[in-house]
């Protein structure tokens, strides 16, 4: 798995911070601010591969991600349509910055044109390796265009130099403050040396643009790595939107075996590649393999480009895989032992030979020269990269097994050599894309850099499997999604502390759940689940021209400079004792305060305490979870009090005490006086079910602060206990 954990979340979990385990996505809109949205204008790589360029407007900033060119076109379609950014051509005003993800031409190819010809002068960001290697790619391309195709150049060498001067290099994970509001950060993307995914954040809105990435490590590069971020938008490549690949090592072995077999048989191996990236990976692969062979054959590299590139790779070793990094002090992995520069005059020298030559798809240049010479012999081998653009010889060789290739109307090449197609690619496969999307769980996904039908299928998967809205716009289309915005407020200590107070619940799990957890044999072991669900409550104060403030309830009144006005409900009702036998003698003996002796002559001298105690026992039986406290002069259930009304002329006696005849064996009694501070009358019907006390606020669990009782509760309670006339 390329994503190394849930970076901050896992660590804080380890630190025992329970709070963060509950972190979840925030869904919020600030009603009136519907204008806050993220716009993604796709200028390239929309439903195609080539000229990657997306302009994202986020929180008032406009960022251009990649500025690539299309290798398949020579007309205006080669570059993104920059006029869509600004009609007037004032790109400095229109764009906040440009971010380039890696040095491939379909990601950086149009940059010198945009800066030097179109006149963009704003900031440009790319990683150190990209800044070092992009000029080589651009210069090489420019030369091919001008010298080989005889085309009029779109930009000059000087343009490239001037353009690169404007670039700010960034390191991985370095948090760059582009301006006061915009923050960007690069994450390792694998794909090629220096490739990065970029995170951009303005205010509370955040997004990631992946560029090209690889979720599995290869010989010289590590796998993509990113933190778990709270994102509104993820723009990801989807080159292999539907492909799932197996282990890479098997395919590497195939390649080595093919090369070995050819060389052992005295044949020549042509490896057409780009100068950067794949060439180094294969060099490492072969150099390593050769090291273990008894009679190695020299690996030849044509042209200075790759040799020079190796020089850069050596200095940029900290951007390679861990394995390569670990050995740099003793031997830099790019100090190849068996690699040397190719003497072109030896093209037809006898004997085995391994040769790297550019360009990769045999679309021209030296690789085509060599191909012409070597293709007719069946002893020889040509390896092809994983992807070839239509129209190139590489593409023709890949599609079927041609025996003859028409180069132009005069030249025809006999193809008798063996063809080996490299099936490993530095792009992530569908599983990798899904893993990344799942890991980041953004609110929206946009797919770019892929083929339309495959993108459609991947979009379907992302929406159905992950439930995330997904889009794959075509070139020059724009996608609008809402962005996140929070209200900023000052919060007091007391409020914060009250929110952080643990709110533990101990739930006894049943036998069934034990067996689910694999404790089938031991039902005796009772598991106790502990849940700590904290519900934060506070009061928001908004004042004109002041920052919003959140306080705890207890702080509000002093802050407002006012005094509490208590509103209580009270209810008195007579309670009768129906069965004297229920009163145990020891309870009677415990009573030391005698009731008004004048009230009834034959009444037992029951004290207030005994009354309350009786009530307490009764209620405790009825409400086992209620946690009723028996205090000296009253019973208490949270804010609800029960006490004996001491007032003979109790003004709250709204029910008349009916004279109950002594022959019924009932004794009139003192008035039970009940009141509560929390004023809530939930039950409007006649019946108060017992379990009403357990009415959930959270998850079906009794919450003291929210279960509130009206005066009727007590009365109802008593009614439920027996007759319509409250009695004990």
């Amino acid at each position, binding site marked *: 798995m390329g994503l190394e954990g849930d970076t901050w979340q896992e660590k804080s979990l380890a630190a025992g911070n329970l709070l963060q385990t509950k972190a979840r996505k925030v869904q919020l809109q600030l009603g009136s601010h519907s204008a806050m949205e993220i716009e993604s204008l796709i200028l390239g790589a929309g439903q195609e591969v080539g000229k990657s360029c997306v302009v994202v407007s986020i929180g008032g900033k406009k960022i251009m991600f990649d500025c690539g060119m299309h290798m398949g076109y020579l007309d205006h379609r080669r570059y993104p349509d920059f006029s869509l950014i600004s009609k007037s051509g004032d790109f400095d005003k229109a764009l906040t910055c440009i971010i380039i993800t890696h040095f491939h031409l379909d990601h950086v190819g149009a940059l010198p044109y945009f800066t030097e010809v179109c006149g963009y002068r704003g900031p440009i960001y790319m990683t150190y390796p990209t800044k070092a290697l992009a000029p080589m790619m651009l210069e090489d391309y420019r030369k091919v265009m001008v010298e080989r195709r005889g085309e009029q150049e779109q930009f000059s060498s000087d343009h490239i130099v001037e353009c690169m001067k404007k670039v700010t290099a960034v390191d991985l994970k370095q948090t760059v403050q582009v301006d006061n509001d915009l923050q960007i950060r690069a994450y390792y993307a694998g794909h090629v040396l220096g490739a990065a995914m970029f995170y951009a954040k303005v205010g*509370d809105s955040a997004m990631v643009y992946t560029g090209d990435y690889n979720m599995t490590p290869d010989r010289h590069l590590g796998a993509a790595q990113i933190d778990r971020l709270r994102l509104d938008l993820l723009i990801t490549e989807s080159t292999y939107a539907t492909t799932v690949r197996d282990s890479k090592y098997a395919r590497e072995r195939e390649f080595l075996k093919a090369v070995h077999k050819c060389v052992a048989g005295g044949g020549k191996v042509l490896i057409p590649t780009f100068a950067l990236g794949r060439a180094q990976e294969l060099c490492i692969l072969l150099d390593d393999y050769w090291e273990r062979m008894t009679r190695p054959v020299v690996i030849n590299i044509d042209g200075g480009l790759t040799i020079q590139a190796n020089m850069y790779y050596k200095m940029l070793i900290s951007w390679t895989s861990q394995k390569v990094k670990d050995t740099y002090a003793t031997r830099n992995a790019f100090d190849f032992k068996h690699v040397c520069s190719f003497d072109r005059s030896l093209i037809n020298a006898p004997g085995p030979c391994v040769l790297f030559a550019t360009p990769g798809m045999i679309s021209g240049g030296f690789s085509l020269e060599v191909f012409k010479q070597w293709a007719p012999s069946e002893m020889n081998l040509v390896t092809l990269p994983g992807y070839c653009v239509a129209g190139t010889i590489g593409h023709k060789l890949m599609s079927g097994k041609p025996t003859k290739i028409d180069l132009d109307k005069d030249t025809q090449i006999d193809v008798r050599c063996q063809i080996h197609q490299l099936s490993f690619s530095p792009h992530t496969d569908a599983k990798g894309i899904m893993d990344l999307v799942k890991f980041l769980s953004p609110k929206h996904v946009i797919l770019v850099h892929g083929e339309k039908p495959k993108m459609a299928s991947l979009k379907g998967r992302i929406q159905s499997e992950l439930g995330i809205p997904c889009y794959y716009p075509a070139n020059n289309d724009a996608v609008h999604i809402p962005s996140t915005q929070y209200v900023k407020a000052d919060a*007091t200590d007391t409020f914060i502390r009250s929110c952080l107070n643990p709110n533990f619940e101990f739930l006894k799990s049943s036998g069934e759940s034990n067996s689910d957890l694999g404790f089938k044999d031991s039902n005796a072991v009772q598991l106790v689940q502990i849940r700590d669900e904290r519900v934060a409550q506070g009061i928001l*104060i*908004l004042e004109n021209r002041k920052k919003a403030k959140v306080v705890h309830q207890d702080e509000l009144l002093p802050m407002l400079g006012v005094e509490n006005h208590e*509103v209580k409900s009270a209810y008195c009702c007579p309670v009768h004792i129906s069965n004297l036998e229920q009163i145990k003698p020891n309870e009677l003996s415990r009573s030391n305060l005698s009731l008004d002796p004048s009230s009834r002559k034959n009444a037992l001298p029951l004290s207030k305490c005994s009354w309350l105690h009786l009530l307490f026992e009764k209620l405790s039986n009825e409400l086992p979870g209620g946690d009723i406290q028996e205090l000296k002069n009253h019973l208490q259930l949270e804010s609800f009090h029960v006490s004996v009304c001491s007032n003979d002329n109790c003004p709250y006696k709204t029910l008349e005490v009916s004279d109950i005849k002594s022959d019924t064996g009932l004794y009139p009694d003192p008035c039970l006086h009940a009141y509560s501070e929390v004023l809530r009358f939930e*039950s*409007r019907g006649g019946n108060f079910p017992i379990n009403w006390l357990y009415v959930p606020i959270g998850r079906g669990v009794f919450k003291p602060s929210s279960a509130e009782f009206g005066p009727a509760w007590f009365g109802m309670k008593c009614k439920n206990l027996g007759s319509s006339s409250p009695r004990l």
Partner: protein
Amino acid sequence: MCLSVADVKDCVQKIKTLKYAEEVCYNGTLIIKAFSSGLEIGTSNWTINGPRRNITCLSSSIFESAHAMNFDYHSLQGNDLILFSDFSSLHGTTGVCKDSDASSNLHACQASTAYDCSSPRDDNGNGEGFIKSLFNSEESLEEMEKLAFICSCAIDSVKEGGSVLIPIGHLGIVLQLVEQISLSLESANLKVPIFIISTIAEDILAFTNVVPEWLCEQRQQKLYSGEPLFAHVELIKDKKLHLFPAVYSPNLLGMWQEPCIVFSPHWSLRLGPVVHLLRRWCGDQKCLLVLEQGVDADLALLPFKPMKMKVLQCSFRCGIKYGFLLHLSRHYFHCSTVLTFSVCRLQQVQPLLEMLKPKFVLLPEELRLQIPSSNTHLSSFFYYTENETLRVPRLRDFFEADLAFQFQPGRLKEENKCLARLKGELFIEHGKHLFVLGKEPVDSSQSRPLLHWGSLDLNLLLKRLREKGINGSVEQSGSDIGPLNACLIHVYEPNKALIEIRAMSTIISAADETLASLIFEAVSSVLDGI
């Protein structure tokens, strides 16, 4: 007790490494970042951002470095508190400088360095212009001069047939000296080998060439043009520079020739290959020993007396400048030469603080006199001493919390003030408090006020009650229910109820729940509440 290699390895494994400006979050609340201080490769100033305040730990910093990335002071801007822990000046002022037999050209040097504090500080009003002026200015020139002087002394010695011994101190100085001396040797057409004898030489030099992201701009430029970052790469390839792990390395013995130039640990002159070489050369007055400031030369050289060797002691920048003084002095003792450069630097501190605009600055007690607090109006100064806790006033009484909610207009009872109850969950995430409102909509019955304040207006209450069809008779200050100023409303319609009103409490008694809740509503509407 001596640490084993395993102990060291275990310890190093526990270190979490960061890039410059990489954010790391501790416990959800503190965000820690490191920024280049310019002193050496990877040396850092740290910022800690918490909900209460933002702190900068400012260590020895150098504005413009010739090898490491420059002092990134921009990123330290706007933090509330600076813990100033650049002690470099404390070592500098109490240095070895005993005698100032300053020659005329040294005077000139002093004049050019002494900075007139009053003139260019006004631009932008934040001292930034001044700090910029420090860049590309005399400071790095001065350093280059020192290096050039050491080089010329080394070349002189070598020409006389003496060897040069340079104990390894600051890595950056060694890297630069290797480059400069090899250039000087080349231009003087001298074929003298340079040796670095150290167990870690190979690792360190390999390392310095693969960390372009940590180096100064000139060195990064070399990356872009595809050249090695330090000249030592080519020197090793051309066999002009040789690395050996120890003096007894067989290859070294085979290659040894004098005169030569040797870099080797340890600067204390008490351990490492330097001891052997010093024994060999201390009696030779053609040989040269280069010491860095910070070593007590008298004490360090004591075991090697009588010293005939020339000794050159030089202080290099190791922190922010405090003072206006520059001493260049030359001492002669025991027939050997000690040249002391000692620089007291106070002049950079104030403009730096003015630009960083902290509210508090914590300075070591020793600098109380050197950095006068009177000139800066923006910050309060505190002075700390070892082993004593210093209390710094609170800056914020409040946490900043982000509230994520769909805002509903709350109860507006007072002018300009709006109150609303919040219920949800509080998260602490990446140094921020995030309050997420519960998803369940607040139902109307739950939105009843739980807290009331103010006093009850009786007439208004009666009016509200009548509106709800509730009628009652008022009984003023019933003495039998207790305190005065109480008042009772006996409700008789639609059912019996009693409302007892006191100054700061109201008690509603009703057998009929519906009635009770109607009365409650009426009372609530008269009082302020939430």
